[in-house]
């Protein structure tokens, strides 16, 4: 079969990939810089074709709760927004995690706090990985660094979501969302039928039939012992993710003295910075966490054994750097370089920071 190659924005790629991976429903609310996701879906009219539902909700709060509803039925459902809208979804996200439902949430991050700016940022790292909502829960967080990954992580996200019955977040930013690149779109998958859902997802609320027990989607448990048991089960699940689902990419790290650590668009910039540094004879490598949770802590801990130092580069005031420090655990210096408020660091700046902060 011929590959379906396109030149697409990251946001468009998400929409196209959603249709093709057999997504059942999208519920969203416009906000820059991600409105193209819903706009592309509306233009593509997948309801005519695959039967996918696309609905503009009255708010982000409504959208995430529509997702909760759809997810409980065993459907592949998703929503997308950008920072302020994602903040509004925190209660709903905590419910989805607490009810152990799979779903996909896309955050095309812009600069905050507050209304902030519509320019790109990575300042929602903490919110995504530490839990912006209440209670002890974790999202699986995927950080794409290209339009291709925007497309690929839709399918991956649903796969992981259903595997663990856990919400998955694609943590992107204005750059990846707005830039166009070559992307190979996946072939069209069929949406699951009701019968298939009933067979695969015994917990789905498809109507109590075939003498099964009623299915209840809930995060409520007033008996403290049972509630603790639930929570411990979640924690075990997160532990399994930590062991089995860590994804990351290394670049020129084998012979490196120093390591850059960066995710998403920042990793692209650091990639170039590595090239520049190598031209100047500085032996630096790059570790790009692809899953922000589970975080590649083991890998970083191992690197800490034989590297001289780390520079974490983020488009924020220093968030992932805490996880890097926790992984390095004092063995080597871990420095930070960041730009804020919608400003994107350039490869030269990164190189400069590397030289002044880390290289001895």
């Amino acid at each position: 079969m011929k590959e379906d190659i396109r030149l697409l924005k990251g946001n468009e790629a998400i929409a196209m990939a959603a249709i093709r991976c057999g997504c059942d429903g999208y519920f969203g609310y416009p906000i820059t810089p991600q409105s193209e996701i819903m706009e592309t879906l509306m233009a593509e009219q997948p309801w005519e074709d695959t039967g996918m539902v696309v609905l503009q909700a009255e708010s982000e709060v409504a959208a995430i709760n529509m997702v909760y509803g759809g997810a409980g039925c065993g459907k592949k459902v998703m929503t997308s927004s950008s920072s302020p809208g994602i903040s509004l979804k925190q209660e709903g996200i905590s419910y989805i995690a607490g009810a152990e439902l799979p779903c996909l949430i896309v955050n095309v991050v812009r600069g905050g706090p507050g209304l902030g700016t519509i320019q790109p940022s990575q300042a929602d790292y903490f919110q995504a990985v530490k839990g912006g909502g209440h209670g002890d829960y974790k999202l699986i967080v995927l950080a794409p660094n290209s339009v291709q990954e925007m497309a690929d992580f839709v399918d991956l996200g649903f796969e992981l979501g259903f595997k663990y019955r856990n919400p998955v977040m694609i943590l992107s930013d204005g750059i990846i969302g707005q830039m166009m690149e070559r992307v190979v779109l996946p072939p069209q998958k069929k949406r699951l039928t009701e019968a298939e859902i009933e067979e695969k997802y015994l917990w789905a609320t498809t109507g109590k039939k075939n003498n099964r027990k009623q299915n209840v989607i809930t995060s409520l448990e007033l008996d403290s012992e049972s509630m603790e048991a639930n929570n411990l089960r979640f924690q075990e699940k997160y532990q399994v993710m930590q062991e089995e689902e860590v994804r990351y990419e290394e670049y020129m790290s084998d012979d490196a003295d120093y390591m850059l650590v960066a995710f998403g668009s920042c990793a692209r910039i650091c990639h170039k910075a590595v090239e520049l540094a190598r031209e100047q004879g500085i032996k630096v490598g790059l570790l790009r966490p692809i899953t922000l949770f589970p975080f590649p802590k083991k890998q970083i801990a191992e690197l800490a054994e034989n590297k001289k130092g780390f520079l974490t580069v983020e488009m924020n005031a220093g968030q992932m750097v805490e996880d890097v420090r926790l992984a390095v655990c004092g063995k080597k210096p871990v420095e930070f370089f960041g730009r804020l408020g919608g400003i994107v660091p350039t490869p030269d700046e990164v190189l400069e920071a590397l030289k002044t902060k880390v290289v001895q």
Partner: protein
Amino acid sequence: MTEELIIAGFGGQGVLSMGKILAYTALMNEKHVSWLPSYGPEMRGGTANVTVILSDEEVSSPVLKRFDTVIALNQPSLTKFEEEVKPGGVLIYDTNGIKNPPSRTDIEIYTIDAAQKASEMGMLKVFNMMVLGAYLEVKPILTLEDVLAGLKKSLPERHHKLLPVNEKALQMGGDMITKL
């Protein structure tokens, strides 16, 4: 080959779609590309720019501060981006409404008078194709044929009647460019 380019102008000048055609054509010719617009709250008017990278290698950073080529289509863009041309790089600008011409001497500077011409000839809609033609004259990374083929592929059938005027604009642009 790697070409790092920024195109900047007013919102209505077709800056983004010019970059898109360039990127699309390059993609069809097996190049790696990235196209990154500066985006703002969407209202009519205002300035717009797009960073396009065309390369035989994978594109690492889509965000740049130094460019091989800057195409500036109004005064604010010229003022802002002149300094971001790499030494030895290329600056192309449309002379329409330019009061402060560029002053750098370490770069190649070209002018076109496309805005004026397009307006005179009622070809405002393909103004950006003139600029593209001019650019390709200076940097023949892609042929006009490639661009036309790209256009043809990206335009829906019902718009194919517009191909001739686009071709004309591309050619005119190529003829129009002047080295300072």
